[in-house]
């Protein structure tokens, strides 16, 4: 945000604005003394722009540098076996030089591992959205359903998703469906709750419009309810994807197969710690990208609330 605001003037002063300032005093000869004073504000402006630029870039860079420094310090002082940043970087280069190799089910490139984790998240999350969003609308619209399901949701929501994994293994008799089931169960709650809250918070004014116009249920849903709930719904989706991505790593560690979580566990069994650190960064970056994409999506559908 700050970077975007301060960045633009910096670029313009460098190219187009600077010549204008030097030309301006020329037609008016009596302002000649002012021409010496003229560049001062421009320089000041440029200085301020530069400061803004550094304020935007420097702190994050310093934060990352601090992380690497602490990491380096820990790695070089103790016998913990944590690899140094440089070693990890070298390992990362080899890992990412061939991300899509496949030597059987237990030895695949990091690209395949990430993709199969994302696939599980997509399936589990997609099923949860299919069930959770309509359920949220129903619970939000009906007081009866809301009172009926609220105790159940309150009871089941705090349960760790991994506690559901054995149930999944029992019912589905397979590691992959069990992992998907775990994603499903952990990502359904934020979607139900946020959708229901969104429906309950649709301004009464909009519903009065619907009543005066005597709109059909479908028109109420498509023209009023759905657009009004969409920002809440997308918040729910964002929370759900975040949780799903957290949970998939843990679930895959337990179930095995192909996936980033399994890869972490596999590399641990090989005592390949630098790979684990790479995996931590990869998981973080993928989570960040998912979150970012959904925030972008949400901002497309958030309308300025109109107040009289």
């Amino acid at each position, binding site marked *: 945000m700050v970077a975007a605001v301060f960045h633009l003037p910096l670029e313009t002063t460098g190219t187009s604005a600077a010549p204008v300032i030097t030309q301006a005093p020329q037609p008016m000869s009596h302002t000649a003394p002012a021409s010496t004073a003229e560049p001062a504000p421009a320089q000041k402006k440029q200085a301020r722009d530069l400061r803004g630029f550094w304020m935007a870039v420097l702190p994050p860079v310093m934060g990352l540098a601090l992380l690497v420094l602490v990491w380096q310090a820990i790695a070089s002082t103790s016998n913990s076996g944590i690899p140094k940043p440089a070693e990890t970087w070298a390992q990362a280069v080899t890992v990412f030089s061939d991300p899509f190799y496949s030597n059987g089910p237990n030895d695949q490139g990091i690209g395949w591992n990430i993709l199969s984790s994302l696939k599980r998240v997509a399936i589990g999350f997609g099923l949860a959205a299919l069930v959770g969003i309509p359920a949220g609308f129903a619970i939000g619209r009906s007081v009866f359903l809301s009172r009926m399901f609220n105790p159940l949701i309150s009871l089941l929501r705090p349960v760790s998703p991994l506690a559901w994994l054995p149930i999944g293994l029992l019912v589905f008799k397979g590691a992959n469906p069990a992992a998907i089931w775990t994603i499903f169960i952990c990502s359904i709650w934020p979607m139900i709750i946020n959708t229901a809250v969104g429906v309950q918070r649709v301004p009464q004014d909009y519903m*009065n419009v619907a009543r*005066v116009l005597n709109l059909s249920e479908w028109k109420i849903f498509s023209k009023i309810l759905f657009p009004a709930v969409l920002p809440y719904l997308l918040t729910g989706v964002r929370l759900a994807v975040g949780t799903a991505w957290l949970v998939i790593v843990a679930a895959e560690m337990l179930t095995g197969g192909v996936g980033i979580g399994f890869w972490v566990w596999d590399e641990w069994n090989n005592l390949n710690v630098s790979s684990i650190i790479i995996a931590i960064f990869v998981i973080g970056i993928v989570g960040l990208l998912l979150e970012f994409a959904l925030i972008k999506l949400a901002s497309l559908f958030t309308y300025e609330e109109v107040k009289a």
Partner: protein
Amino acid sequence: MNTKYIDIQAVEQTFKTKKGLFPALRDINLSVAKGEFVALIGHSGCGKSTLLNLIAGLTTPTSGVLLCAEKEIAGPGPERAVVFQNHSLLPWLTCYENIYLAVERVFGRTETRIQLKVRTDAALELVGLKQAAQKRPGEISGGMKQRVGIARALSMEPKVLLMDEPFGALDALTRAKLQDELLEIVAKTHATVVMVTHDVDEAVLLSDKIVMMTNGPAATIGEVLSVELPRPRNRVALADDAQYQHYRKAVIDFLYTRQGHVEKAA
């Protein structure tokens, strides 16, 4: 001429609150003729909006009957269009789409798409907002939003136009402009209008009949004043018209001399 187009008989409205029953309105008897412009005026909290919501059918009375065109008002419907105090436009639809939603609902079954489009454009034209058709409510001013709200209500060709302090949130200049526009539109369409207001000048300028309400709780109609000023009315010419001043004085007298003391006590 049908003198009892809207007929309100012995209506009483009581709300259930946490502190028990709250009597909002009692003993309301009122009739509105077809094509008549009626203003409901009173201090805030006197139940003006409650009465309007009853006519709209958004709420049902505790006891009593409301009739419109000799049929009981059982619920809200497009034949009694409402202009809401806060315009209530849907922020995700453009001005055009907001009006089209209403037009489509009322005329969609009997008319072609082209006819519906013509109606929507005509409604926008009527309030002078053709250039803002493709803008969203968030991109236009408060006065423009209110005009879209009025256009939406008028586009339905309602039998009755109900307005709940439609200009209350606007500045004085915009308000005057919209009042003049409303006068023209009403003259053109011969609509039956019930308007809630707390503005004495607005009431006298626009209406044929001013219904003055006593203070709540358990408010009722204190007095009904017939405004027999000739139409078309011009606000500048009326400013020093003796008859206009007389009506104005009568309303102020009711509001501040006879009903003022309760306001102080509250």
